[in-house]
C-alpha cells in the first residue's frame, strides 16, 4: 500500500514538471493536428485518398487496414525508441531526487520500508511511461479508427511492450542512482542500456560477423545478460501492424527483459537497504 502512495506522489511530482507537461502537450498537439489536418477517404473499406492539410498524398488504393500498417509500425517505433529516449532523460532525476539530502532522511524516518520507497519510485515511473505510450497510441488509434473505420487494439499492446522496454531500462537507471546519486549517471546508464539492448537484440547477426576469440566470447556473454530491447521493439512493431507473432516469442523476449529488470531491482534494493543517509 505504501508503495502505491510513493508511486502516486511521484506522479504528482511529475505532473508539476515542465518536461512531462511539455510531452503531454506535444502528444496532444500532434493528435489535434491529425484530427484537423488529416483527411482519409474510405470507399468500401479501401483507402481511396489521403489529404494532409488539403494536399493530396499519392498513395495506391489499398484496403484501409493494409494501408494503416506502415503507420502503426512507424508509430510503434517512435513510441518505443522516442519514448524511451525522452523517458531516460526526463526520468533520470526521480531517483536522485528521492535520495537527495533532507528528503531521504525524512522519508526513511516515516513508517515506510526502504524497499517500498524504491518499488514505489519504479512503479510510478513505469506508470508514467505506460501512460504516455498508451495516450499516444490510444489517441492515434481512435483518430484513425474514426477516420477509416478500422478498429484494432494491437497498437495498444505494442505500446505496453514499449513500456516494458522502458521499465527494463529504468530498473538499471534506478540501480545506478542508488549507487551514485546523480541524474547524469542515471541517464548515462539508461543510454548505455538502450544501446546495449539494441546490440543484444541483434546478437546472433553480430556474432556471425566476429571472428573467434576472447572479444567474441565477451560480447556473447555480455549480450546474453543485456535485455534484448531491439527484439522487443521489433515484436511491438509486428504486433502493431497486425502481423502474426507467436505468443511464445513475445513471452520469451518479455521474460528476458523481466529477468533483467528483477535483477537490477534486486541489486538496487540490496544496496539501498545497506546504505547510510
Amino acid at each position, binding site marked *: 500500500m*505504501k508503495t502505491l*502512495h*510513493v508511486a502516486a*506522489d511521484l506522479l*504528482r*511530482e511529475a505532473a*508539476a*514538471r515542465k518536461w512531462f507537461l511539455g510531452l503531454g502537450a506535444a502528444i496532444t498537439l500532434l493528435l489535434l493536428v491529425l484530427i484537423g489536418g488529416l483527411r482519409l477517404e474510405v470507399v468500401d473499406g479501401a483507402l481511396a485518398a489521403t489529404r494532409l492539410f488539403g494536399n493530396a498524398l499519392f498513395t495506391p488504393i489499398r484496403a484501409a487496414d493494409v494501408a494503416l500498417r506502415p503507420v502503426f509500425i512507424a508509430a510503434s517505433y517512435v513510441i518505443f525508441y522516442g519514448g524511451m529516449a525522452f523517458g531516460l532523460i526526463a526520468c533520470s532525476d526521480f531517483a536522485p531526487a528521492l535520495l*537527495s*539530502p*533532507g*528528503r*531521504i*532522511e*525524512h*522519508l*526513511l*524516518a*516515516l*513508517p*515506510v*520500508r526502504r524497499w517500498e520507497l524504491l518499488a514505489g519510485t519504479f512503479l510510478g515511473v513505469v506508470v508514467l511511461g505506460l501512460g504516455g505510450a498508451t495516450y499516444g497510441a490510444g489517441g492515434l488509434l481512435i483518430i484513425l479508427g474514426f477516420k477509416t473505420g478500422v478498429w484494432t487494439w494491437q497498437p495498444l499492446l505494442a505500446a505496453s511492450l514499449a513500456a516494458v522496454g522502458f521499465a527494463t531500462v529504468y530498473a538499471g537507471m534506478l540501480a545506478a542512482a542508488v549507487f551514485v546519486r546523480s541524474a547524469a549517471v542515471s541517464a548515462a546508464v539508461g543510454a548505455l542500456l538502450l544501446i546495449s539492448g539494441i546490440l543484444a537484440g541483434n546478437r546472433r547477426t553480430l556474432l556471425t560477423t566476429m571472428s573467434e576469440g576472447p572479444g567474441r566470447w565477451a560480447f556473447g556473454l555480455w549480450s546474453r545478460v543485456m535485455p534484448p530491447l531491439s527484439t522487443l521493439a521489433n515484436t511491438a512493431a509486428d504486433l502493431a501492424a497486425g502481423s502474426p507473432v507467436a505468443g511464445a516469442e513475445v513471452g520469451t523476449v518479455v521474460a528476458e527483459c523481466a529477468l533483467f529488470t528483477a535483477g537490477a531491482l534486486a541489486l538496487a534494493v540490496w544496496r539501498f537497504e*545497506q546504505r*547510510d*543517509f
Partner: protein
Amino acid sequence: MTLALEATGLHKRYRRWMFGRGGQDALRGLDLCVPRGSAFGLIGPNGAGKTTFIKCLLGIAWPDRGTVRLLDSSPEDPAVRARVGYLPERLHLPGAWKPPAFLSAVARLKGVAVTATQLRALLERVGLLDSAERRIGGFSKGMRQRLGLAAALLGSPELLVLDEPTDGVDPLGRVEVRRLLESELARGATLFVNSHLLSETERLCGRIGILSGGRLLREGPLDALCRAEASWEVRFAPGADGAALVAAGFRPTQEGTFHLDAPDAAALNAALDRARAAGALLVELTRASRDLEDVLAEALRAAA
C-alpha cells in the same frame, strides 16, 4: 522509569568507500537514555556526531556496533516509526506543491487519516495558515522549517526528534515554536532536540547531553549540569566590610553579592568563619550556577 529512547555502546564509522577501511568515527561507544515525557537537548560543536546519532536512532544510518531502542522497540520496525515525528536539519520540500498537499502526502505515508480541517488547524499551529495556498517553492527558510515541524507533528507522535527546529526562524517565531513544543511536552510527548542555539535548548529542555567527538561528555538534568559544585554565591547583610571579605577569599560580583570558590564543606565554612570574624552577616548562600555556554565550553576544554 520508562524510556523513550535508549542507545547502548553506539559506534558509527563513516567509510570512504563501500568496503573501505578508512573513514571517520562519528560515534564512539555512545550510551544515552531519554525518559518518556521529558525534553532532552543534545548539544555540541559541529561534527560532534549529533545528526549521526539521530540518524542511527531512526534507522536512517546503521550503527556499526551497539543497540538502539526506540519506544521499547527497534527503529527498523515501521510501526514504531509511525509513533515518531522527525524534523531533519535541512528538510527538502517539493517546491511545486502547496503545504496541504505536502502534509497530506506525509500523512498518507505515516498512515494517519487527516481531514482538510485538521490540516488547516495544524498549519495554524505552526503559523502558516495564511500561506496555505502558496507554493512551497516560494517559502523562506523559516517557513520551510515551520512546515517541516507541522509534518513532524502529524498524528500526535509520542516522540518528537527535532534537528535544529528553530534554524532560520525569526526571534518571534522561535518563541512560537518553543510554545508549541512546550504544549507537545504538556501533552505527554517526549522531545529530543538537537540544536546549536544553546539559549533555546536551555529554555526548552530539562535534560541536556553534551556530545563531542562522538562521545557523550556530560549528561543530566539542566540544573545539575549548570550548578558549579565548588562555587558559591554569597550575600551578606548591608554594611559588610568589602576589603575584609576580599581578604577572606570572597570575590565581589556586579550584582552586589560575593563569589566564593570552596572545594569542600570545610573550606566553605572556614571562609564563612573568616567573614563573620570580620563582622559580615550571612543572609544568603547558594551554589553558583553557569549558563549552558559555560558548561559546554568547560566540558569541551576538559575533553581536549
